[in-house]
Structures are given as C-alpha cells and as structure tokens.
C-alpha cells in the first residue's frame, strides 16, 4: 500500500517536473532570426583578427612586443620611480584601476580606461585625442600628474638599461645626453632646455620616444578579452546544445539580454563583439562637483589634429592613403562638446567605478541614470525596477579571462 503510494507520488512529481521543464525551455531560449543575428554580432567569435596599424611598422613584431611588455611594467620611467603603465592599467583589474580619477604622480581629471581589446579602436582616450595606440602610450609619460617624465629622460633610460633590446629592433641608438627636456611640458625650464637643443638631437630623441611608444603598443595590442558566459551561451545556441544553454545563463540573465538587444536598445552604442561602437556620445553624465565641465571630444579633435605623433606626422609609418580616420575627421567640433568615447562592456562588472570621471560607483547607478535620462542618445522605453535588475544581471555575464 505504502509502496504503491510512493510510486504514485513519485510519478506525479516526475510529471510535474517534466511539464515545468518543457514549459519554460522553448520560451526561455527561443530567439527569432533577427535576434540570432544580433547575438552572433555580439559573440566573441565574431571578433575579427587584430586590425593592422599602418602607422606602426613594429606592431606585430615579437621582439618589439617583448620589449614593450618590459617597458609597460617598468616604474623607472617616472618622476618618482614609482609609476609605470601598470600603475593605472593593472593586469588584475582588466588593465584599469578602481579609482574615479586616475592617479600617478598626482591626481588626473579622468578615469583610467580599460585596455582589453583597445587595439580595435580608431581613437584613444575618452576624448579621442590620439589616433594610434603608440601615440597614446606616449601621452601619460610626459603628463605631470601621470608619469611626470620627459622624452629625453626616457631616451636616456633606454640607452642605459635597454640598449641591446632597442637596437635589435630599431637599429643603432644615437648618442643621448642626460638632459631633462621636453616640448610637452608646463615646466618653463624643461621647455627651454628642449628648445635650446640642436635640431638633430631633438629629432633623435623624438625618434627614440616614438619607437618606445610603438614597442609598448605592440604589447598592449595583445590584450584581448577571452570568452565569457555570454559567449558560451551564444555558442551553445549555434550548436543546438540544450545542456550548455541551460548551464550558461540563468533566466534572469537571459531576460536582461533580451532587454539589452531589444527594449533598452543598448546595442545602439554597445554593439559588436566588444560591446562598443567606439564612437563619441554626450549622454549627459553630470560633471562631478568641484570639477570644470569637460569638453570631451570637441577638444580631442583639435588635439589630435595638432599632435606631432599623429598618423600623418613624420614619426608615423603610414603612407598618405592610410590615415582615413584622420583625413575625414569631423571638424564641426561643436557637435561633440561633452561627448566621450563609448567604452567596451566586456568585464564591466569587474571594474567599477564608471564613466569618464568615475561618476557612478555601481552598475545599478549607471542603469538608474540611463533610465531617467531624457537624452535622445539613450532612448528606451520605460524600464521597471525588475528590468533594471535583469539588465544588471546580464552585464555580469560579460566577464572573461584576459
């Protein structure tokens, strides 16, 4: 009697379970053709090979990469011997840091940017004031509040500690005198020292400096994101692998994904395998208290056009037909006042705070800001509290190894 009762109960339980499983599965993982196409475009498998950088002849040179990696982690290239690229671009923090404003020798006015997949960008920094990875690497070295260093000091250090590495890649190093001089400084004495150098010496130092940037870029190019749980889900979808589908994302995360590519329209700017269109938008993020308003890309356009290390400059290896982004850059800068580059969302949950001056401490705050925004750049339907939580849950699925 008891046995029959047990069998009957277990049968009922089993059928209930089977019914509930089959009731949710098709709904949960049902995507129409258009949606599958969007998922494919976001999938890491759609990331094309690293684009060539015609301005950097050493971009894919393995020796340059090894040299650049050493330079990246070497704190001697700073005014206090404590600041290296890795100080603000920490490998354990998706190659950024956890501060609202980056801090080298002093405090800066912007957040460090993450370096994962950075080589896929056409413009560098929040305001796009550099048009190559190698010229970007040279910026912080001479910034007072970052490395607080000079190009002549860089050249001298390379001749002291890295002569053989340098010469193997770039050829014989000219004679370097240990002058502290730079054209890109607020220090009058440092500037005057530079101006007083012989033209040939200035040219030699600039050449070494540019090569240093190119080596660092050869290393930083290789920092690309690895597959995340989201990518595993998409792969499982293509393989019709139901088990893997269920193991990759929870129902809450899938709801968030649906919102991300649908009602919330995040893919307008956060599309493609790196979840960014790498373009410049003014989303109305507030200026922090006590800071002046930041003109963003409007100033960035002027700066990149006057940068001696830009694609059309004499230290670039590009031919005249190569520099399309610079040649066709939009000169109507008033359209870009307060516009900043859309960052990647890969590993976004691992790297608070958010926005160009770290204005938002949590993803919740970011999503809440987007919900209440009236800007046409961020235009989505009314999002409920539950939907915001679902979006947040989905964003957590974009974390992967580096």
């Amino acid at each position, binding site marked *: 009697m008891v046995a029959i009762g047990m069998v009957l109960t277990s049968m009922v339980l089993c059928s209930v379970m089977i019914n509930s499983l089959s009731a949710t599965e098709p709904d949960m993982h049902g995507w129409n053709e258009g949606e599958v196409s969007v998922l494919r475009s976001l999938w890491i498998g759609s990331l094309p090979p690293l684009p060539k950088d015609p301005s950097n002849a050493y971009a894919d040179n393995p020796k340059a990469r090894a040299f650049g990696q050493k330079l990246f982690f070497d704190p001697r290239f700073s005014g206090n011997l404590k600041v290296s690229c890795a100080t603000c671009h920490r490998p354990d923090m998706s190659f950024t840091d956890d501060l609202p404003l980056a801090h080298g020798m002093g405090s800066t006015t912007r957040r460090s940017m993450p370096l994962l997949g950075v080589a896929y960008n056409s413009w560098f920094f929040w305001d796009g004031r550099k048009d190559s990875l190698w010229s970007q690497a040279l910026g912080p070295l001479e910034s007072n509040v970052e490395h607080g260093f000079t190009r002549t000091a860089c050249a001298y250090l390379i001749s002291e500690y890295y002569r053989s590495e340098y010469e193997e890649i770039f050829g014989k190093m000219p004679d370097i005198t240990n002058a502290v001089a730079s054209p890109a400084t607020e220090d009058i004495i440092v500037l005057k020292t530079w101006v007083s150098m012989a033209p040939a010496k200035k040219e030699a130092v600039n050449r070494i400096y540019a090569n240093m940037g190119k080596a660092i870029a050869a290393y930083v190019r290789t920092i690309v994101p690895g597959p995340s749980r989201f990518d595993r889900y998409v792969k499982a979808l293509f393989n019709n692998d139901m088990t893997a589908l269920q193991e990759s994302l929870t129902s809450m995360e899938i709801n968030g994904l649906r919102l991300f590519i649908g009602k919330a329209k995040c893919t307008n700017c956060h599309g493609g395998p790196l979840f960014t*269109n790498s373009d410049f938008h003014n989303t109305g993020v507030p200026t922090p208290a006590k800071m002046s308003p930041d*003109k963003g890309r409007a100033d960035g356009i002027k700066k990149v056009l006057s940068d001696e290390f830009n694609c059309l400059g004499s230290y670039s290896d590009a031919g005249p037909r190569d520099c399309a982004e610079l040649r066709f850059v939009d000169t109507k800068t008033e359209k870009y006042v307060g516009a900043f580059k859309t960052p990647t969302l890969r590993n976004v949950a691992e790297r608070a705070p958010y926005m160009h001056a770290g204005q938002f401490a949590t993803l919740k705050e970011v999503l809440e800001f987007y919900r209440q925004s009236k800007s046409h750049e961020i235009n989505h339907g009314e999002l409920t509290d539950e939907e915001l939580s679902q979006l947040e849950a989905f964003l957590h699925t974009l974390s992967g190894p580096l």
Partner: protein
Amino acid sequence: MRAAIVVMFALLFPFTAFAHHTDPPTTGSHTKHYEHSLFKVTEKGLFSVEMVVKEKELKVGVNTLDVIIHDKNDKDVVGAEITVVPWMPEMGHGVFEKPVVRERGGGLYSGENIILIMEGHWELRMKIGKGTVEDTVTFDFPNVKVSEAPSQGEHKMTYSSAPADLDTSAVRESAKKQFKVSYVSEMMPIPVGRIISWKLIVETADGRPVNDADITMEGGMPEHGHGLPTQPEVTKGTAAGEYAVQGLKFSMPGWWTISFKIRAQTMDDSVTFNLLVQ
C-alpha cells in the same frame, strides 16, 4: 496763492521726474512684435528686449536667437553694443564659446553660437549699450534640456522611425527626376564602424553620363537625430559620370540616409539613399 501753486509744482516736478525713471512702463510704450517671444524691460528701464529663440526652446547644444531692442520711447535701437553671457547660477560657470551678436538692422540683432553645454538652469545675461548709456537684463531658463527636436549640424535630422516600406535601392531617381544616380560600395554588406568608399555614378534621366558635376553630401540616422560621424569627400572619379565618395563611416547599425546635392550644366537636383545597416 500763486506762489503756493508755483511752490507746489516745484515740489511735485522732481517727484514725477523720478517716478518716470524708477517705474518703467510695462505696457504701452514697449510693443511686442511676435506672439511666441520672451519680453523683458531692462533694469533701469532704458530698453526693452524681445527675444525669439530660433528653435522655440533653448536646448543643450548650439542655439540661435533674435532680439529686438527698443528704447523707452519704443523706437528701434540701432548701433547698440550687445553682449550675451550664458550662465548657470547654481553651477557657477558659463560657456566656452563667446556668443556672437550681429546687428541685422531696424533694432533686430541675432545672437549666434550660443552653445549651452549641459542641461539645467541657465540665465542669459544681456548687456545693452548705446552711446553713453548702458543697461542690463537677465532672461531666465530654469529647465534647459537636451534637444527633443532636430539637433545642430549642417543637416537638420528629424526624429522619425523607419517607414514600413523603406526603399533601400542603390539606384534612385533624383527628386526632380533630372538624374539617375547609383552607388557601388567598396564593401558589402556595409560594415559598421569602418571608413569605406563608394563609387557614385550620375547619369541624366535618359542615361548619358554627367561629368563635371558639383556634388555635396550630407546624411545621418533619422531615428537618432544625428548626422554623419565623419566628413566624407566627393571627388571626380576616373570614368565618365563617376565620382569617388571617400571617408564614409556608418558608426552603428540601423537606418541611415545619405543625400547628394548635384549641380551640373543647368540642372540642380538632389537624391537620397536609404540604408539599413546591420
């Protein structure tokens, strides 16, 4: 008795004179010209300012406004020196670009290049000087927002959704049917976020190639209300009727329009292509 009356007038006259200066008339001597305008009299009552914002409301970004200046006798004020200082009182800052005020004649002045950099409470602090006199007035805008209407740039985009039967053909007749225009893209499908070139082929309606046309272009995304992210160039191509369009970039997926204004021989026409970039 007469002496008393004289004294009375003598006593009254200064008061009436002061009354005229401390009590600026608000109606009667200062006429509004436009229905939808903002109207204020300056602090000392020397001028009246009627302001018309070009796009009805001040917005974040580039704004233009017209002001009509009248004196206290309601006459046009010409040759005035006018400065406009946009200011955010709670934030304690203004703008980066100094607005330019141009005289148009008959008391009309245009304030151009008023670029408000963020949402919020703005004041437009005006100073009007004519000859030796000067006066000020402040117009208050408590809630300036990001534009809900067409934004700045050479091409005014309207916010509209893609129509159901969008014609995405790469071969189209121009608006006045004077030209047949087609494009061939260097890369198909159109990639997102990459600079590409197009070959543009321009023919007359009866199929003859059009050489030496003067072609300008504009474009953008109607649903998002923004223009092109780059500044493409149209130059003469190698073959008859062919032109090279370089520097085109489609920065995000969606509905894009690309328009060409074509002037050749005596013809002046335009054509628009629709694209659904994926």
